[in-house]
């Protein structure tokens, strides 16, 4: 505010600048004239061409680097993609089967296999690193959803209310026309063709995971790396690099191990218990709403193995978590350890199956669900809405 405070001090060095021009700051209290916007004298045509060529070469090299690393172009697993699937319920598929859970239900159920067996693809609404409770409440509040729901319970994520992507439901209801169009443009023009277009390979992410010196006194964790590939209808499976690259597989395991011990400053046992109780209460309430309008709900504890399973059994024992949830929600559940056919699959990093194993698992699970729960002659089909089993079928 020049008029207010008398102007800037003199500048010791003012080089000659033939592009120099005044701004509104120099003209108090008058009508401002049409601005001047000079173009520097340069060969702009050849400079533009050179810039575009250089950018193309750099991007080509960047793409080549990531493909050589083992990355395949696939869809970005973001809120926009989730919203497309969520909106299917409002667009005439309210009676569909919905899969809702965390990464295990997301990676380990293969939609093409399910579709082949059922004649119809389910709607995949699971999100990695995210408890399904927020999305469950969103479904409960949507009267258009009257179908069937397979609700995945990953103990670590569910009972600790880990909610990295819980904003997806809110995003769906508030998505702007611009975001909607941008999602389709990206899905059609960018994502199927470029491997580097993945959050794990963004500039900042790549730089951040270089071997920087660690700051004394600051606890350091390795961030979770890319684990999956996503395709149409959010069909997702474990990235084959985890399966075929021993180093990457070990890295994934190391990352999981970091979470097996309590973190400094983390919640106390009492706080953890309270969180788990709140999750159970929210889930039971949402399920009651869904059941009231005829939705069939089936809980599932997907397989895990190795050190991950040992950690889950230690920190989230079945009796104190899963059984309480099943009882409170009043719906049947499948606990993988109760079914021999749901065991023995290969989970390279102890939490998710390889793609081929996931296909085999999907076929087995679908048959089991139809036989015991959702099929016309299933023993639990009629009783599902009335009985709250303390111990699941079998």
């Amino acid at each position, binding site marked *: 505010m020049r008029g207010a*405070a008398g102007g800037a001090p003199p500048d010791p*060095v003012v080089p000659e*600048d033939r592009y120099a021009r005044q701004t509104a700051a120099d003209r108090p209290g*008058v009508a*401002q004239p049409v601005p001047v916007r*000079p173009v520097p004298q340069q060969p702009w045509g050849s400079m533009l061409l050179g810039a575009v060529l250089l950018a193309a070469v750099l991007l080509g090299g960047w793409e080549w680097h990531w493909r050589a690393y083992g990355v395949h172009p696939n869809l970005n697993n973001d809120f926009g993609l989730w919203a497309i699937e969520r909106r299917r319920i409002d667009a005439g598929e309210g009676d569909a089967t919905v899969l809702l859970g965390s990464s295990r239900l997301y990676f380990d159920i293969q939609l093409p296999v399910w579709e082949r067996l059922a004649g119809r693809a389910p709607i995949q609404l699971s999100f990695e690193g995210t408890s399904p409770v927020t999305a469950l409440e969103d479904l409960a509040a949507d009267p258009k959803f009257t179908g069937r729901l397979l609700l995945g319970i990953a103990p670590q994520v569910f009972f600790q209310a880990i909610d990295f992507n819980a904003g997806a439901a809110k995003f769906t209801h508030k998505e702007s026309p611009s*975001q909607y169009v941008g999602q389709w443009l990206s899905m059609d023009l960018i994502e199927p063709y470029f491997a580097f277009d993945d959050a794990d390979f963004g500039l900042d992410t790549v730089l951040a995971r270089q071997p920087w010196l660690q700051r004394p006194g600051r606890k350091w964790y390795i961030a979770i790396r890319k684990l999956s590939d996503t395709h149409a209808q959010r069909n997702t499976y474990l990235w084959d690099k985890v399966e075929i690259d021993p180093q990457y597989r070990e890295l994934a395991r190391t990352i999981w191990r970091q979470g097996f011990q309590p973190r400094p400053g983390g919640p106390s046992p009492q706080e953890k218990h309270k969180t788990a109780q709140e999750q159970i209460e929210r889930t039971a309430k949402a399920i009651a709403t869904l059941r009231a309008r005829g939705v069939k709900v089936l809980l599932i504890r997907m397989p895990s193995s190795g050190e991950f399973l040992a950690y889950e059994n230690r920190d989230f024992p079945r009796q104190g978590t899963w059984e309480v949830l099943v009882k409170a929600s009043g719906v049947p559940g499948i606990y993988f350890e109760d079914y021999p056919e749901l065991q023995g699959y290969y989970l390279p990093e102890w939490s998710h199956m390889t793609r081929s194993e996931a296909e085999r698992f999907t076929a087995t699970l679908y048959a089991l669900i139809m036989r015991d729960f959702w099929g016309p002659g299933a023993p639990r089909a009629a009783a599902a809405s009335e009985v709250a089993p303390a111990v699941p079928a079998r």
Partner: protein
Amino acid sequence: MVFSSLTFIVFFACVLGMHSLPLPWTTKKINLLIASYLFYSAWNPPFVILLWVSTVVDWYAAQGLVKARRAGARHAWMLLSVVANLGMLGYFKYGQFLLDNFSALMTALGIAYHPAHSDIVLPVGISFYTFATMSYTLDVYLRRAAPARNLLDYALFVTFFPHLVAGPIMRPTELVPQFAQPRRASAQQLRFGLALMTLGLFNKVVLADTFLSNAAERVYDSDKIPGTLDAWAATLAFSGQIFCDFAGYSTTAIGAALCLGFAMPDNFRFPYAAVGFSDFWRRWHITLSSWLRDYLYIPLGGNRHGARRTYLALMGTMLLGGLWHGANWTFVAWGGLHGVYLSLERALRSRFPNYRPGPLMFVLLGLLTYTLVNITWVFFRAKTFTKAWIVLRGMFGQNVGAVPILSTYLLSVVAAIVSALLVTHWFMRARTLESVVARAPPLLVSIVWGIMLFAIVAAQGTGSAFIYFQF
């Protein structure tokens, strides 16, 4: 839609294509108007109605002003415009804030008053276009400008998409005359416009969003108590982030307009090389600071009625300028601090009218200005006063025993970018971008341009909104 989105790239390519067709000038202007409404409705279509209301009210108010014979009638037309615009702004932006404060006041007086939360959605850019349209009627009222000759030109002035949602805040005299004659960018203008857009998006997507926002968020948006290093790093990161975000937007907007053959004014002049706060405000968000000066500070009396009145006008202007940025007392505190700085500087200039700093003192005063500006950013970034005090205590070494928050990587990134930013601002403080580009070897410009393009794509920005959209 945001400039840094894929949707905008396609939209802008279509607009450029339409604008280059051999169509009558009026048709091209209608195309631009429709495109601008599409641009705005891409956020939330119903809010286009607000644009129309603002446009129509001010158009008729200006017509009324011209036709009015009596001073009272002129005054009434001017007031209609001001009340309609500020009313709209007040309802959407400050409605809940006023209600909350009224409720708090009642509680303090022992009266239980708990109004329901109103859930009012803030229309994007409302602070910018209401100020732009108000400047139209105010300029006509103050007899600084003649009204637009037709509604199309005026509506396009209000709605023209490059400046619509985050400025630069255009005055009618800057833009309306440009619609009088057919305009189309020359090949050189188009290419330089694209270069400016690249520079602006690099600032926004790469520097602000990708590299600087993280450090600020980890300190300001967490419950952790920051130590001295973390508090300063986060605040410096935010100072860089908000400059790169907002100057990046302005540069992109100027470039987009230039690609279409229109000129928009400078909004930033390397503000972190400012020496003193009057200098800072001649370099930071120039179109807002000059708007506040012309339509608030000067009408409040400016410096024409003695020292006491001047300081009151100055503080009033800066407090309201702070409130313009958001419905929160922290913004008022930010504006108030700047008001205090400006007042102190003015007092010192009055006390030492002949003081001229030598080169070393000049730089030291510049660094002092930058440091004090950073302290104001704490109030701007913190969502609450409690958080602001925690960060300030950290900056002044009072959070003893604080656990380190930021990684070596983040500290290095902040140090590198903020240092580069400061050096650049000092190098450029008396230069224009155009003069530096004109003197640079073409190959160097081309390489820098190519690297910026690569970095924009490789950074994988998520098209997050510009910080100033919320204002």
